[in-house]
């Protein structure tokens, strides 16, 4: 058994108290491999401790939080990689609903604003719309995004204008459809982003790349969108 020490951001509107950092410790026996396992154990002691979680394997993107100063998924963060005290805070830049749970409305508004679906007005063929293996390869590194919001909430530009800057997660998805050989809406998609805020608030700070728990590169995708804008302008 090892004793691990946590400092966790606590806030509950119900109590009327101001947010505070709470120090908690828990004995782990080694089977709690990931941070999420440890959090579940903490919740068994104090059921009021609140965080989102679902698939516990890095697929649903629910348990993103700020872990020792860096955004990531609790279920993919190995306890051995963390130094005590383990400081847990909600994702920065979005309103806190309770403890480690943030209001993701702004995040999803931006995501929906880029039309995250295939646009193709041709009559669908009898079977699938086919792609060559090379065309399909263009989507690698884009389609894997699980919308956990780690990147956008690590981005100072998104903190500053969450209502106007699409943010790295939304822009990665915008490029995912621009790069899709089956999508016909590239022109309108670029028009939609040609704006001093929506796209051009990205100043390549690269926090998004640093924190993505799936190892994706939103900054790279943003660079490609900017390149397409320049190309069509000349």
């Amino acid at each position, binding site marked *: 058994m090892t004793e691990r020490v946590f400092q966790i951001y606590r806030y*509950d*509107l*119900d*109590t009327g108290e101001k947010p505070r950092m709470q120090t908690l410790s828990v004995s782990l026996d080694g089977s709690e*491999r990931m941070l999420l396992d440890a959090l*579940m154990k903490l*919740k*068994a002691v*104090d*059921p*009021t401790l*609140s*965080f*989102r979680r679902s698939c516990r*394997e*890095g697929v649903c993107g629910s348990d993103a939080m700020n872990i020792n100063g860096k955004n990531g998924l609790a279920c*993919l963060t*190995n306890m051995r990689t963390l130094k005590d005290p383990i400081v847990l805070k909600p994702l920065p830049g979005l309103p806190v*609903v*309770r403890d480690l*749970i943030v209001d993701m409305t702004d995040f999803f508004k931006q995501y929906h604003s880029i039309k995250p679906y295939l646009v193709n007005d041709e009559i669908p063929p009898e079977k699938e719309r086919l792609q060559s293996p090379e065309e399909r390869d263009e989507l690698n590194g884009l389609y*894997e995004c699980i919308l956990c919001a780690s990147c956008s909430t690590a981005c100072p530009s998104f903190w500053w204008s969450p209502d106007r800057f699409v943010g790295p997660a939304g822009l990665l998805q915008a490029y995912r459809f621009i790069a899709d050989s089956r999508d016909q809406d590239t022109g309108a998609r670029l028009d939609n982003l040609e704006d001093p805020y929506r796209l051009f608030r990205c100043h390549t700070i690269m926090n998004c790349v640093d924190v993505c728990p799936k190892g994706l590169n939103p900054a790279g995708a943003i660079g490609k969108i900017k390149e397409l804008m320049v190309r069509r302008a000349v």
Partner: protein
Amino acid sequence: MKDLAPRDFVSRCMDQEIKEGRGCGPDKEYIVLDMTHLGADTIMKRLPSVFEIGHNFANVDITKEPIPVVPTIHYQMGGVPTNVHGQVVAPKDGNPTAILHGLYAVGECSCVSVHGANRLGTNSLLDLLVFGRAAGHHIVKAAQGFGSHKALPPGAAEFTQARLARLQGSTSGEYAQDVANDLRKAMQAHAGVFRTQALMDEGVGKVKQLAERAKAIHLGDKSNVFNTARIEALEVDNLMESALATMVSAAARHECRGAHTVSDYERPIDDAAAPNGRNDAEWMRHTLWYSEGNRLDYKPVNLKPLSVESIPPKVRTF
């Protein structure tokens, strides 16, 4: 073992190796899956998420070394019965598929009956994409013809309010996750990949006991804003319903069919009445479980596709 053997068969083979003492590790509690012959290129191209899981959860590089594996539950076979439009159906006045207007079920919770008694690769996509889309279309069309809603029956919210009030009023009792963990163990032991009649009968008793324990769960957080403890406690209730449905239906089905392999009913492949233990004459029918009174009913299997020729069921070989 064949590469494309069905999942239930593969699971049983895995379980057999472990139960017969040929497992790996200090406690011989798992077997290992070696994918290295595929080569790093194929693995990274075709199985990137499997590579990720190995890296994150087993500390294993599957391009270089085998990964520990055990069989586990993956998908519900069965669910809320629906027709091809996602409309929920239930027997009424002699019609086995009478429609419950306004209620739809889509995805893993539904049973359009495309699965049969087994789970095949990408069946979930069929449930989600094909029938999800069909249900969406149907709902839009149905809503356009709507006048107004029927008046709710008096006391329509009583059941739900009572559930919430019970938890809210609890002062002592068990933690929801402790009951959920015991349910997980009971289902793994009694509704697992190898079943016997005795094991299933015992399982029915255990799940009933657990359902009683679930009724006495203590909610330690009574607050109003984003209360995940309350959601988890309600989820345990829901888990009990689906566990009971699974366990009771399984124990009542005296044959082998798909993933439901019961050693008491295993027969040779050339058995006249029940090849491989599958007894179509008696058991080719859907089980319906009713929460009210914990009772079972059955309905016929639809063997007539809408737009293609019917394929008669055959003895399973691979």
